[in-house]
């Protein structure tokens, strides 16, 4: 990875525990500014915990995380989070535009309504992701790829420059995955920082310049080709199908 002064997110000796269970062990690494990074590992390896820690949701047992020069709590306006698809109720009575507008809510506070600048931001985000024509449609009546683009547009409308995606490829068909891969590559070219939990090694190789391989501890981090070697993957996934993830007790 590049020298630390180019890193937008830095982890120094980060350890997270849930009771006696260690979810992340002594992680030290940097996420380069304007890069796309895939976070990989078997179930329970700490992928989601790592994202949650960047968002400042996770009490750290040891170590520290910096986003720019700030504690994650103070960097919140810079970060946009895209949840897993399965956590969304697709029958919810809401339209595409309604979801994208939510990206503006945090900056509105309690009493201010959506202003012209807010509406323009929403328009631009929907245009960039090619969903302007679907604005009035209820979200169930979209393809998987379109649904994912709605949530990416909401993240864009927030106006941050760091994007944290939890398993964005999960549940997408081939066409949807291709669509998403194309968008994320475009984002990287535009200098946006993307960090995504990814299940599929092949997708990580194709779409992400950098990779982090976890096994509660750090197996490897750096350019994707150097990280995702057969030896590293074997090391990170050796427990898959064997000892269940919950057994990683200390």
């Amino acid at each position: 990875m590049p020298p630390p002064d180019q890193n937008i997110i830095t982890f120094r000796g980060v350890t997270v525990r849930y009771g006696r269970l260690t979810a992340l062990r002594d992680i030290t690494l940097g996420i380069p500014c304007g890069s796309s990074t895939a976070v990989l590992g078997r179930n329970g390896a700490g992928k989601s915990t790592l994202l949650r820690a960047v968002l400042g949701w996770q009490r750290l047992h040891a170590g520290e995380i910096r986003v720019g020069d700030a504690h994650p709590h103070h960097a919140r306006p810079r970060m946009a989070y895209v949840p897993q698809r399965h956590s969304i109720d697709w029958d919810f009575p809401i339209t595409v535009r309604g979801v994208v507008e939510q990206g503006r809510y945090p900056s509105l506070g309690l009493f201010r309504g959506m202003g012209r600048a807010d509406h323009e931001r929403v328009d631009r985000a929907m245009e960039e992701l090619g969903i302007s024509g679907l604005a009035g449609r209820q979200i169930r009546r979209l393809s998987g790829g379109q649904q994912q683009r709605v949530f990416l547009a909401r993240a864009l409308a927030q106006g941050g420059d760091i994007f944290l995606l939890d398993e964005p490829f999960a549940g997408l068909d081939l066409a949807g995955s291709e669509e998403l891969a194309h968008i994320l590559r475009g984002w990287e070219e535009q200098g946006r920082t993307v960090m995504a939990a990814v299940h599929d090694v092949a997708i990580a190789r194709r779409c992400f310049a950098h990779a982090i391989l976890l096994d509660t501890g750090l197996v490897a981090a750096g350019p994707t080709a150097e990280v995702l070697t057969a030896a590293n993957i074997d090391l990170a996934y050796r427990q898959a199908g064997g000892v269940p993830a919950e057994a990683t007790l200390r």
Partner: protein
Amino acid sequence: MSLHDLLVAPFGYEFMRRGLLAAMLLGVSGGLLGCVLVLRRLALMGDALSHSLLPGVAAAWLLFGTSTVALFLGGLIAGLLTALGSALLSRLTRVKEDAAFGSLFIVFFAAGVALISKLPTRLNLSDFLFGNVLGVGAADLRLAMAVSGCTVAVFLVFHRSILLETFDPVFHRATGGRGGLVHFGFLTLTVLNLVAAMQTMGIVLALGLFLLPAVSAYLWCDRLASMLLLSVGVAAAGSFAGILLSYHAGLASGAAIVLCLGAALLGSALLSPRHGIIAALRRGGAR
């Protein structure tokens, strides 16, 4: 019977006007709350919560008589104890949330029935359980006004937080939202409305005024704003029709209102062009 006898004459009585106004006011706030209950999949929890208010209300009656404030506080305390108790049980033991809530509410409900059967008054248990529009006094009406106004105000001020917490709590939290606070506030509002609706609807049936309009509206609407408005409209119309039905047919008012709202639900489930049963069958079964 003329149209006048059917629709207007009943409201020549003071108690009918009070009952109608109370039911319609609580229909407005119940219609709003019901939408959140339905969308957050808390419908069954709301039902359990309403039953658990009984011992609090009965104890308040025993200690302080007919004071509305005391009844209301008694109900609130019982409701919060149930919510807290089941949260403790599910967080600290292996008992899951639904089993914890289900077990506690039935114990609370039994305690309420036991207390009422020992009350040294001519109080009627069925009025507590199923509502009696005759009993709506001026104080009850004032309570309904306050609770309904308060609920509408909360929805107006916090509509974005309520939408985010209902639709995508993880995103709400990621953007600095206070999910726990919204949840607690929502629970408190629900208990307030249930207690205020007790006189007309009864403890057992009060949730119908919240739930049925919201489910009906859910079957028609693809936008939250329209769902909220339609739900409020259905609740108010159902209350009006129900109070009339209760007068003409001599039914408990809570039961009459719930039956009218049930008809609205049945109609919606059958006829909604996009999400109804007939439309689904025409499409060939599943959605």
